[in-house]
């Protein structure tokens, strides 16, 4: 590859890394902070929270966590702080209830704890008071306003561009072709998974990846077929640099929604940048060809997932929160595997 082009690409990635670093300094302090994860939280919120702690001593209906400090403490609803009562009444006209965006909480942090969601039977075992307080957030989301805006951008991009293209592509291409394309790009991603496996000490997975690459690239004609799995039982080990960082106990940082790329976290963004260097497409020239192939990969991948996003959108009241939760739990599971 032309060294000048390589340098140019490296510069772009360096810029991303600097931006990521800025985000670290900008939002990492929210990790253990009691209030920064709430975008609207300022000194008043802190004061209100202190009042809540004081009141908690007198009011049994309110419990405030002692430790560890939750990532996003919303002010518990107390008698001194109950504006939502009015909201509740206001949003209750006799007929035709108008539900505004404000009716949906911005994040699930402000939920009730005191019962284990995995054990539904425990609720109501004995009369108990409802503890109203914050719950530890799955991930700090201090950039929620930016993220929600990007979520909207991606939503439009999906419905206006990606979905129609993927639908058309699905119509004109036979299933075996799409499967072949998927296998081809998956095979190209071997270096990412191989390095990820080695760095995490998963040598069996690394061996399997290496074996898969050799077999699928040769017998599988450049990775279009997957004889490694079919005939040799070599399973892929789905690792990436973001997971490797997670395995080294590096926390998520904050949640970020990137335009085009979708949900991520600070850690996974850094990981993604590392993955780019390991992807052979990065070194492909001319650039137009690399972009074209990347586009094909995205459209092909989407053709398998048409309807998934729509289901989440039609099922849940706030798809942004649901996708954020799904992303974080999915990544957590991947790291734990």
């Amino acid at each position, binding site marked *: 590859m032309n060294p000048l082009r390589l340098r140019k690409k490296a510069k772009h990635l360096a810029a991303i890394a600097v931006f990521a670093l800025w985000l670290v300094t900008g939002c990492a302090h929210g990790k253990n902070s009691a209030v920064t994860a709430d975008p609207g939280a300022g000194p008043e919120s802190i004061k209100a929270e202190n009042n809540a702690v004081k009141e908690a001593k007198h009011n049994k209906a309110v419990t405030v966590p002692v430790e560890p400090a939750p990532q996003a403490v919303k002010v518990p609803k107390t008698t001194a702080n109950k504006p939502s009562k009015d909201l509740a009444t206001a*949003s*209750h006209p006799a007929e035709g209830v108008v*539900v505004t965006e404000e*009716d949906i909480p911005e994040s699930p942090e402000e939920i009730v704890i005191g*019962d284990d969601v995995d054990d539904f*039977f425990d609720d109501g075992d004995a009369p108990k*008071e*409802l503890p109203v307080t914050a719950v530890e957030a799955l991930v700090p989301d201090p950039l929620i306003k930016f993220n929600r805006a990007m979520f909207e951008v991606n939503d439009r991009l999906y419905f206006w561009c990606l979905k129609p293209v993927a639908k058309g592509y699905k119509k004109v291409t036979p299933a075996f072709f799409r499967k072949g394309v998927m296998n081809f790009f998956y095979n190209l991603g071997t270096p990412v998974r191989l390095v990820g496996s080695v760095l995490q000490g998963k040598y069996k997975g690394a061996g399997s990846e290496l074996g898969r690459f050799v077999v699928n690239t040769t017998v599988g004609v450049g990775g279009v077929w997957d004889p490694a799995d079919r005939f040799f039982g070599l399973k892929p080990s789905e690792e990436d640099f973001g997971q490797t960082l997670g395995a080294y106990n590096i926390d998520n940082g904050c949640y970020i929604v990137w335009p085009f790329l979708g949900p991520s976290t600070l850690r996974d963004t850094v990981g993604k940048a590392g993955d780019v260097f390991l992807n052979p497409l990065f070194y492909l020239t001319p650039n137009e060809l690399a972009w074209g192939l990347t586009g094909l990969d995205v459209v092909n991948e989407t053709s398998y997932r048409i309807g998934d996003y729509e289901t989440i959108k039609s099922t849940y009241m706030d798809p942004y929160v649901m996708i954020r*939760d799904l992303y974080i739990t999915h990544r957590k599971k991947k790291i734990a595997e």
Partner: protein
Amino acid sequence: MKRIIFLLGLVICIMFTAEPSFSDDGAEVDSLIKTSMNDVLGIARKPGMNNEDKRTELWKIVQKTFDFAKITEFTLGQFSYNSTSVLGEYSDRRFTKAEQEEFREVFTRHLGNTYLDRMDFKNVDVIIDLKPAEILEAKKGIKRAQVKTMINKKTPIDYILLNEGKDWKIYDVKVEGRSLVSAFRTEYKAILLKNKPKVLTQMLKDKIKEHESSKTKKKS
């Protein structure tokens, strides 16, 4: 000798009390899940049947297999009308029996819309790896069981069932370890902290309206 007779008696007692109930329940649950899955796949693959009829037939199976009253109760949790938790100043957020009944109807319809209308009847070639039923610890005298499945060797889907005396019914589904009831419960709880039950029901009604109108648009 007396001790041996006593021990023998004890062993027989244990055999007659614990063993049969375990295997019977397990077999019952296995049979329910297996039959339901076969029925669903049979309808989905039926040639010459239009999608609307398939949906109607599938809905009948779903209603027979799922316990929507319990799903509703668990989704609402402490806000459910029969919960004994003290809600304090949130007491106006507890559903009345009538409100919960209305919510159950709307929520059931919402679930049906979400999952049945998403079924791709053109692509029903799925490989289902069905594991034997596991009997879970009974809670409040209600028997519970779990059936783990693996769809297309990729996606784990677990069904959690209960038996309140008559039949086994599904009350939760876990997709890749994530409970659907828990997901709804978290979201609705957050809404109920800011709004009264009627608002949540209305929000669901709006979702259903949205769904119906998008379905009509697709048809036209």
